[in-house]
């Protein structure tokens, strides 16, 4: 109250006689003129490093390693959290693991012979990330708790400046957006969600202090996270109700622990691990024929998944509830050996009735029943933005990337956007794999970015900007190819925008993607 009344008083005080007002006007004009001559209020310039990296997850750290290996040491990594690891730091829910074998879900330039299992858990993956930081001495480059709120390009100087939410500024001649596509999450928009008086937990922000023992738990969501959490919860909770909207295709998971001799072999003979990686790579590549395009292999993959379901679930109705009605690959293919058995345990129940609302005590479904629980686990995925950016990104002439992407994100080769020079994106538009390791794609992106960065530094460029027409041509071809894929075959998934635009996936083999990224064509760029 006092502040506002003071403000009123101050403004009332300014209401002076006409003569004084005119003098004040003159003074203001003089001030403005002086300001035009020397912009005194401008923030002090920040000395730019060669490369500014946003995010200390797999992508940002991988970029840092490749920069170091290339002899570029003046880079800074801005990380909004207080630890490295990105998605693997955040996703530490019980049972969290990668659905790609670890020997393929790791960097080829930093192999780990010690994976304990074929599909390692998230803690082991996080340990690997910590190991990368230590081995390549990256810690000194990382600035923790720097939450980027704005990224702007100055065409005159050829410098990107990142401003954090605390107004700290960092500058770089090139910028890498490595904030990750799956880094933000929120509770879903279900009616009544705020009325729930019990405990709410999001899979990507797990509360490790909450004890599930003896609790009635609801799990909403049966995607990649849900099917990993559910078996773990069924083991400890009193009762688990699983609310499913759409069943996914589930393939068996060939998971086994790595024998000691195997680890020793990989250590002593790195070529053997590379051979294993190659084998896994080509096996996954062949899956593209089943997952990306509708082919006879698609039917075989569906057959395998149905046999897996039939073998694990004897009840016809439950099998029906768990049978997807879309082509395999249209949504993320799931892998699990223990999800179906967990659903059939005495203390678990699958509920496929649509959710009407969340109430104070639980979940009300359309069959009229209120399922009362102590805790609701939301395994509902991430806030994926196919048409925006996590913070404003301002390029040449003040253009804003989020605005350009309103109709759907697009980039050149997933990595550069015309009008945003010297900016490289990891997991940019249309770079997602449906069948192979994300890190395989990432490595190609890092190599491409490195070529661009070398050119900027080597030729002392202020601007390395992909040509608009090149980008247009590329996207026309990508969208044409996407139209023939399973992702665009009619199911709703996070790969698509509300309007059905696919700005997420790459319509081809990882090998094709790698070939495209290996080819850095200088003619595609405008330089200055």
């Amino acid at each position: 109250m006092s502040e506002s009344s003071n403000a009123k008083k101050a403004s009332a005080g300014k209401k002076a006689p006409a003569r004084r007002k005119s003098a004040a006007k003159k003074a203001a004009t003089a001030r403005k003129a002086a300001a035009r001559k020397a912009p005194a209020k401008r923030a002090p310039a920040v000395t730019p490093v060669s490369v500014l990296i946003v995010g200390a997850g797999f992508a940002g750290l991988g970029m840092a390693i490749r920069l170091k290996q290339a002899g570029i040491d003046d880079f800074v990594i801005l990380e909004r959290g207080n630890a490295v690891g990105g998605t693997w730091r955040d996703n530490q829910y019980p049972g969290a693991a990668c659905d790609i074998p670890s020997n393929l879900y790791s960097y080829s330039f930093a192999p780990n012979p010690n994976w304990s299992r074929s599909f390692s858990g998230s803690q082991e993956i996080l340990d690997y990330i910590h190991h990368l930081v230590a081995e390549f001495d990256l810690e000194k480059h990382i600035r923790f708790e720097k939450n980027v709120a704005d990224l702007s390009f100055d065409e005159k100087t050829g410098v990107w400046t990142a401003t954090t939410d605390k107004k700290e500024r960092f500058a770089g001649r090139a910028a890498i957006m490595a904030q990750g596509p799956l880094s933000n999450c929120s509770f879903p928009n279900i009616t009544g969600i705020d009325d729930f008086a019990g405990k709410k937990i999001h899979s990507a922000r797990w509360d490790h202090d909450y004890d599930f023992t003896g609790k009635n738990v609801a799990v909403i969501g049966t995607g990649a996270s849900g099917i990993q959490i559910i078996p773990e919860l069924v083991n400890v909770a009193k009762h688990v109700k699983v609310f499913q909207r759409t069943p996914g295709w589930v393939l068996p998971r060939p998971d086994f622990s790595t024998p000691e001799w195997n680890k020793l072999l990989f250590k002593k003979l790195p070529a053997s691990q590379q051979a294993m990686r190659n084998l896994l790579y080509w096996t996954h590549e062949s899956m593209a024929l089943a997952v990306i395009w509708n082919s006879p292999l698609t039917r075989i993959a569906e057959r395998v998944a149905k046999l897996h379901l039939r073998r694990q679930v004897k009840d016809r109705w439950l099998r029906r509830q768990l049978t997807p009605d879309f082509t395999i690959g249209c949504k993320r293919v799931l892998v699990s050996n223990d999800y179906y058995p967990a659903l059939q345990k005495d203390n678990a129940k699958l509920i496929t009735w649509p959710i009407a609302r969340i109430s104070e005590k639980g979940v009300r479904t359309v069959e009229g029943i209120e399922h009362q629980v102590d805790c609701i686990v939301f395994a509902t995925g991430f806030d994926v933005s196919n048409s925006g950016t996590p913070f404003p990104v301002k390029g040449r002439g003040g253009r804003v990337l989020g605005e350009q992407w309103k109709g759907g994100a697009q980039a050149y080769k997933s990595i550069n956007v015309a009008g945003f020079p010297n900016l490289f994106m990891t997991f940019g538009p249309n770079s997602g794999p449906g069948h192979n390791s994300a890190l395989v794609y990432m490595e190609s992106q890092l190599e491409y970015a490195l070529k661009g960065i070398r050119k900027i530094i080597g030729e002392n460029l202020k601007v390395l900007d992909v040509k608009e027409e090149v980008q247009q041509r590329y996207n026309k071809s990508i969208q044409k190819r996407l139209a023939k894929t399973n992702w665009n075959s009619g199911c709703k998934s996070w790969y698509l925008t509300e309007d059905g635009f696919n700005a997420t996936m790459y319509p081809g083999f990882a090998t094709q993607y790698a070939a495209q990224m290996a080819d850095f064509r200088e003619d595609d760029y405008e330089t200055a």
Partner: protein
Amino acid sequence: MASIDLDKMLEKIKSTQWALSDIDWDAPGAELITEEQWPKLKEFMADLMWIEHVGARAFAALSKKAPTDTLREIYSYFHAEEQRHANAEMALMRRWGMLDGDEIPEPNVNLRIVIEWLDRFADEMPVYVLGTVVPMLEIALDGALCTFLLETVEDPVCHQAFEKINDDESRHLGVGFTVMEMQGRSASYIKMVQMMARVMDPRLILGIASYMPLLNKMRDNVIAMGLPEEKLYKAMQKFERIGGRTEEGRRNPWFQLIKQHGRWVTNRSNKAYHVPVDALVKITGLVPRKALPAVPSWVKELTYEPVATR
């Protein structure tokens, strides 16, 4: 009546949900059921509950087969809503002391046969077949039975529940007739050919063989309850009236078939139909319950409890 906008209908369905806990099942009024009414009402309610449940399963099949995302989602809601009706009717039965402990009332043999058929073949049926049969079942059995119930039972809780149920049902019928009209829009002869191919399908013949005696059996049950036969027939004629209100509706060969069948059912003097079908009712009545396969697990989802803690 013009066809409805299905997207708007889906929004309306989502925004008008109710739960069993919205009704006070222990409120006074249960004593208004007379001793004379009680045994017949028990049978009647059990049949009604099972019809809702069978309807639910048919909607489940439609939700897999429907041609658009919106319609698929609408049908998945209708599936759950029919289940809600069955649950609410079971809660009424419990209120009136008609449940033997926690036991679900036994379905009659004709219903058991229909349940078995739905469980095995419903998902294989084209959307046209169930899309036409379901509105008929809803309008004839559900509609007639619910009206009759409200005319004869004075318990205010029963009226409260059925007010909600009838609101849902009017949406089900609105969508049902719209879909029938949608099916009548393309070239009739193609539909006719497709239909004839389907009619030859032995799975469908089995379905027809279980549907026909069910109708006659229900007619017998309803009459035993004191519902004038004409009321049931009047409801069935409503199907013919609404379903045939537009050119598209009339062009749907399944509508024509079901309409014709409705005429046979409502014409008691049609011996060619009623003698064999009534015989089927008698024969199926002789089938020992033990000879029937175990009820599918979806049947066990029924509950009268508004709240589930496990």
